[in-house]
């Protein structure tokens, strides 16, 4: 880290910076909407809501809930209406830059789970890649971890920089801005901030450390992937874990790392589009086949796949990294208070009788 990189943004300078950024980019900032906090485009007069963890993570900015993959049109020759030709038009996202400002480090970290799948495999996802490339994350380090936070279990932390371009560290009545990437550096430059003083830097580090200390200690999870694999056929275990689950999608749709999707066509008249939309592995229909067969007909089997994917299959395929950023939204947004930490620990501690 080059010392001169660290800048200080006083609290009252923040909205000016955002305003400045929003001249050239779409800037999504957490704002109060009803009783929720959402990432909404910054407009003049928008009030930033930075005290609460946003209700939904910034996932949709890079992986929108509905992505139009292509448009299609049947063209007809009025002289020969029986001969219609098909036109397909690829609809890649534009190249405009989007800045996400005020997400938590875990929210940005979520994309590090996407990247190996959408941007590094045999098949590259051009929609994801285009958006990923053109999105800059300015993450706000956490001062007060919540009861549901467990980023430290999965390799993150209150001031984790993975996936972020700039880290905003609360200090001295403002924020120490720590660029993580070149993109981040450019963004910070826009603000024309003064360098952060050593005192400010020390305070920022101290507060980050304090926050980390406030997290409950992370358990050892190394054996979990194998353990879950072993438990696969123990349906009793999964039925117990899933008893209170109601198979809704609150956990998956609010998860910064869940990337399962559906593809479907919608049309009107001769035109239509093929869209990609978030899908929910907890839904019975997710794997329901046209024949009526369903490999995962019960919620226990579906929960097994969800937890298995995050804590076993994904790490086995991707260098032991868990497909979870520990943000805790699945826990606190669950209407029935299903706690994924409890499931993982139960699996870890499960002993065959």
């Amino acid at each position, binding site marked *: 880290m080059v010392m001169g990189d660290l800048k200080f943004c006083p609290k009252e300078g923040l909205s000016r910076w955002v305003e400045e950024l929003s001249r050239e980019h779409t800037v999504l900032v957490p704002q109060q*909407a*009803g*009783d*929720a906090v*959402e990432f909404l485009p910054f407009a003049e007069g928008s009030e930033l809501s930075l*005290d*609460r*963890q946003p*209700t*939904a993570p910034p996932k949709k900015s890079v992986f929108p*809930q*509905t992505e139009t993959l292509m448009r299609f049109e049947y063209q007809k020759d009025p002289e020969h209406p029986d001969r219609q030709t098909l036109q397909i038009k690829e609809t890649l996202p534009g190249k405009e830059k989007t800045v996400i400002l005020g997400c938590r480090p875990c929210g940005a970290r979520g994309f590090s789970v996407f990247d190996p799948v959408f941007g590094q495999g045999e098949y590259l996802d051009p929609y994801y890649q285009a958006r990923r490339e053109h999105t800059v994350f300015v993450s706000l380090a956490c001062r*007060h*971890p*919540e*009861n*549901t*936070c467990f980023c430290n279990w999965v390799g993150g932390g209150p001031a984790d920089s993975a996936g972020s371009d700039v880290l905003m560290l609360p200090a001295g009545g403002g924020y120490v801005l720590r660029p993580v990437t070149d993109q981040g550096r450019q963004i910070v430059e826009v603000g024309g901030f003064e360098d952060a003083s050593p005192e400010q830097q020390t305070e920022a580090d101290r507060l980050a450390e304090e926050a980390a200390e406030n997290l409950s200690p992370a358990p050892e999870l190394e054996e979990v992937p194998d353990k879950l694999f072993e438990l696969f056929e123990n349906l009793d275990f999964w039925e*117990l874990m899933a*008893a*209170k689950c*109601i*198979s*809704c*999608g*609150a956990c*998956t*749709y*609010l998860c910064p790392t869940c990337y399962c999707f*559906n593809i*479907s066509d*919608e049309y009107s008249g001769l035109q239509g589009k093929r*869209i990609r*939309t*978030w899908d*929910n592995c907890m*839904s*019975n*229909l997710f794997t329901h086949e046209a024949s009526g067969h369903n490999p995962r007909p019960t919620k226990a089997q579906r929960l097994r796949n969800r937890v298995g994917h995050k804590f076993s299959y994904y790490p086995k395929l991707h260098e032991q990294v868990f497909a979870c950023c520990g943000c*805790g*939204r699945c*826990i*606190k*947004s669950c*209407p*029935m*208070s*299903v*706690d994924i*930490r*409890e499931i993982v620990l139960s699996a870890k501690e499960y002993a065959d009788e």
Partner: protein
Amino acid sequence: MKYVAELKAKIREKLPELDVVIGWKQGFDPVHASPAFMTTPEEIEQLVVNPLCVQNLATYLPGLKGKKVGIVARECDTRSIGELLQESLIEREELTVFSVKCPGAVDLVKLRQQVGDLGRVRSISFDGPRVTVETPDESSSLDLGELLPGKCRVMAYDEPVLADFRFVDPDQDTVCREEADTDLVALEQMDLDERFAYWRGHLDRCIRCYACRNVCPMCVCQDQCIADTRDPHWLSAETDVRQKWMFQLIHAMHLAGRCTECGECERACPMDIPILTIRRKLNREIHELFGYTSGMDVDAVPPLLTFQPEEKSITEREW
């Protein structure tokens, strides 16, 4: 609640005859309770009954059809049970109702408005109408009445619709009460354009997770919901506000005359969308039109599954 010991004893007594007893236990943090599926005496020990026990456990009953199930239920929860029985979605013989006098309930959104992020609450305790909440920064003393969910302020339930065993503390008062429906009143004071904008704005937040549907005890379709099918193709997979709005209307209309106003849909909504208001409006109209309140009479016929050749309350508009 003082009756909890007695309740535990009774569940212990009945457990050998039952496959499972559903109650509540402490959840992952001080402010969250969680459904408990009790099959062993040890699990019964974890049972709690306090104003944080907000889930309507009746929602699990249709999924457990065929099993002998015991359920701990507040008065309002028994209304949902009544409706399920009325529609033959569950069997009375399979059911044992441990009816508890409601200790009141905490709307966590309202609590959050008072004390800030719930994730920072260290402890919460109840002493009659007083609620004491501790966070690292401060300690607040709140009035339980102010924290009641909206659903507890529109109807007073003194007695359960049905019960096998009843648990009430001496001198325990009914906490819920019948007052004006403030959400609906506020909405109806807006002009039409404002109401349209109100819903468009709120529903835009919807993420189509269907927590509202899946938590609803009266949603019989579950895996077969028309929100998810292409035949019929009522909704597209798109996430524009029309689809979201249409879904709410599908849910509301399918619940018309059946909704027991347990408020779980609104409570479950992770995006805090005030969707109960639509159902409540329909219930109010149903009451006015048909003098009917769902779930209160196990032998009644839901009003949309029957008719009168002369409808007293429907004025035929002459066109």
